């Protein structure tokens, strides 16, 4: 009887202190996505998608174009708003018009297919802008952090240049450094190598692999199956806005269960 009462009290306390944080303590989840649906007009891009990502986990999301994989990871930092379901990031539930969205975003780094570096700022300024404006660091401190992270992606000697003076691979590494400067707890990669010339893919993947080895929580939309094999803890396959199948890389590539997965793999692994 006493035990039951205690349980009830614990439940009540949990409810009064926004419960997602407590859940987060119990199971260290970086991202929880539950029954998420989204429509662009009348077209449904996400159909009841549920997937959790643990802290430190590396997840590769793949699937044919238009399968909703980019939309899914863009929902995680609310560049796209989901219309149904729940998304909890680092213990904070993402709701329409939420107050702390900028704070959530500061902890979620994002790397885009088109790099999206700011063309009017130098490499260094690209890295320090958010540190100064959003993290409120002094300029000197911000530059120190920026240089450390440029060093991390081995491009520190280009700090004074403008993005257009760099190759695609260099630009993407700067974009990764820019995101890392914010000390994110999660990194999202949206097809980071798809816009690169073939000879530059490796330098970017090497940086990403290094990041994975440091224990960063990563969610990567990519068609680089070699990277998925080598780095991912889990591969998620999407088609038609649904998660069709998810498995460890070895299982995913050697024993895909669904016909759609098999067809996809046969098309990209030639």
């Amino acid at each position: 009887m006493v035990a039951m009462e205690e349980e009830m009290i614990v439940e009540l306390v949990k409810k009064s202190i926004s419960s997602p944080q407590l859940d987060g303590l119990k199971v260290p989840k970086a991202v929880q996505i539950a029954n998420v649906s989204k429509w662009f007009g009348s077209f449904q891009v996400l159909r009841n998608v549920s997937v959790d990502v643990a802290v430190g986990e590396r997840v590769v999301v793949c699937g044919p174009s238009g399968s909703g994989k980019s939309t899914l990871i863009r929902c995680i930092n609310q560049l796209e708003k989901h219309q149904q379901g729940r998304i909890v990031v680092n213990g904070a539930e993402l709701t329409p018009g939420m107050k702390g969205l900028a704070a959530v975003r500061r902890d979620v780094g994002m790397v885009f297919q088109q790099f999206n570096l700011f063309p009017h700022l130098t490499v260094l300024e690209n890295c320090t802008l958010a540190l100064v404006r959003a993290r409120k660091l002094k300029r000197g401190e911000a530059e120190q952090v920026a240089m450390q992270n440029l060093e991390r992606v081995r491009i520190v000697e280009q700090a004074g240049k403008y993005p257009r003076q760099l190759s695609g691979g260099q630009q993407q590494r700067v974009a990764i450094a820019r995101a890392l400067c914010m000390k994110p707890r999660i990194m999202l990669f949206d097809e980071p190598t798809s816009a690169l010339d073939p000879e530059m893919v490796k330098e970017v993947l090497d940086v990403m692999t290094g990041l994975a080895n440091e224990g960063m929580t990563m969610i990567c939309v990519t068609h680089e199956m070699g990277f998925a094999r080598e780095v991912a803890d889990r591969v998620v396959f999407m088609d038609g806005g649904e998660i069709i199948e998810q498995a460890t890389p070895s299982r995913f590539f050697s024993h895909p269960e669904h016909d759609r997965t098999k067809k996809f793999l046969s098309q990209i692994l030639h």
Partner: protein
Amino acid sequence: MNFDFAFAMRIVPLVLEGIGNTILVAILSFIGATVLGFCWEIVRRSHWMLRPIAQFIIDAIRSTPALVQIYFLFFVLPYYGIVLPAMFVGIFGLSFYYSGYISEVFKAGIDAVPAGQGEAAESLGLSWADTVILVIAPQMLRNIAAPLGAYSIGILKSTPILAVIAVPEMLGSALDVASETYRYAEPMIVAGLLFLLLALIAAACVAALERRLGLVSQSH
């Protein structure tokens, strides 16, 4: 009728009397048109209910002659008790007329900044204001500098419209000379050449400004 060079030289100072007003009206109208045009564009991008209203105003401005708008301000408003000085009507009229066009310059300038720029700024956790001021606006300025420069010269060349409401500008001065002497060739040619000179100076200033902003060397 022969062109009288000596007469032309003699009337230069008379025509020049209006040049101060021409420059003043052109500069103030350009500033007014830019501010007003920016406001139309902001309203057009704001609330969905305000959007069609702003669009209608912009379309209406661009679809009626400047002369009609200025006549309206100067000759029609007084019937409703609103009497405005000619100089004010001139500056406001040109500002209003050109704001319709300049709002389109802002629209194109903002649209030309890739959506990924705002997304990158947002995903770094920058506030909306920082995103607009530090990321979007500098890139927009590069996009609008050239067309805005072109409109500044367009406005300069439109100032003679104000002769119809007796604002003493350069064409007005030339017309005064013409009506007193019954000679049109010299005053019109002198006025035309002075406008050409002003426009060339303005164009050089615009080009210098673009170079200063690094628009030529940094275009990508």
